[in-house]
């Protein structure tokens, strides 16, 4: 769905299921990986240890926190935070 260009006059849906589907979710996780890997042209992401605190404001599920903690690089850590379910919906 393009931002600001909703075609139906009824406007954007305000239900959660209209904003997520299988393909989109995979796309978001891959976007998080590319973003954290500085593969998005013109964008540089400062990957840091405190990503959970800065991006997610510390408000994350235990599983997300422990999964991120197991990441083997800062880039992966950042990607696992930005692609996490906790970051998809605030």
């Amino acid at each position, binding site marked *: 769905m393009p931002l600001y260009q909703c075609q139906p006059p009824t406007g954007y849906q305000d239900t959660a299921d209209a904003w997520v*589907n299988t*393909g989109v979710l995979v796309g978001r996780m891959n976007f998080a990986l590319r973003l954290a890997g500085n593969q998005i042209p013109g964008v540089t992401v400062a990957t840091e240890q405190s990503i959970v605190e800065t991006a997610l404001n510390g408000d994350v599920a235990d599983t*997300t926190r422990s999964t991120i903690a197991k990441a083997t690089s800062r880039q992966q850590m950042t990607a696992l935070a930005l692609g996490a379910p906790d970051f998809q919906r605030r």
Partner: protein
Amino acid sequence: MHSRRVFLKNGAFALVSLGFAPSFLARTAFAAGKAARTKQLIAIFQRGAVDGLSVIVPFGEPDYYRARPSIAIARPNGGDGSAIDLDGFFGLNPRLPPLKPFWDAGQLAVVHACGSPDSTRSHFDAQDYMETATPGVKSTPDGWLSRYLGARHAEAATPFRAVALTQQLPRMLQGRASALAVNQIAQFGIRAGRSSDRVGASFEAEYAAAADRVLNGAGRNAFDAIKMLKIADPAKYQPVRGAMYPRSPFGQALKQIAQLTKSNVGLEVAFAEIGGWDTHVNQGAAQGQLAARLDDFGRAISALVVDLGIAWPTPSS
């Protein structure tokens, strides 16, 4: 708006070009659903409104030639660029010979001169009406293919029950029934180089624990789909029986539909689209923009039918 539908009869395989008759389609598919094996519906959308009179040419109608002095397709047997006779009155566009064998075998049906009854001149609205199947009503939230999926009982729905070979989920498939948009099935998955498997497993763990019902469900679906594709490996299914898909995006989309079908991932509804039909003054006749689109269209569909090796019943009449 000129529009027209082409169906390959039998219900195992129905082709839809620009047109409006979902109830007819649903009946066909429902009737077919009684058979033992899972029936599959492949919907093809020709975006931009194809000119039906140049595709299925009414060469037996003198007014056709009077009304179209420059872009009419010549009567059959008039040399290069003349129509391919079907029934003595209608003929195929000369760029569609790949479809002729299906007509001869009684496997191809044409529903001519039917379309949306709404006379809007907005292409966007007209297209939306085709996809929602509610001409004149803009507020319909879902597409007809999605409603069809909702109405049809799924024995064991997989994440590949409904797949659009497109970048974005078409309006036709938007709605309550889950559907997947994948442009390149070979590239569907978590892409993190050599760490792909490990990172994928990490994401999977996060989503499996997600408290949000929608994210949890979509996440489970996503990882199920990725695993199924990895096991089924659709790319290993190369075209058989000499099927030659055009290298065009449309040809490649249909090839992937065949690969998904052969890899038994539970595909029930597939969607592909082909654009460039809004030809305006560049339409041409036996040559031109329309002819080039039809060439791609006919060859791709023919390749799909041959590749799938659909067992056609003998026509009863």
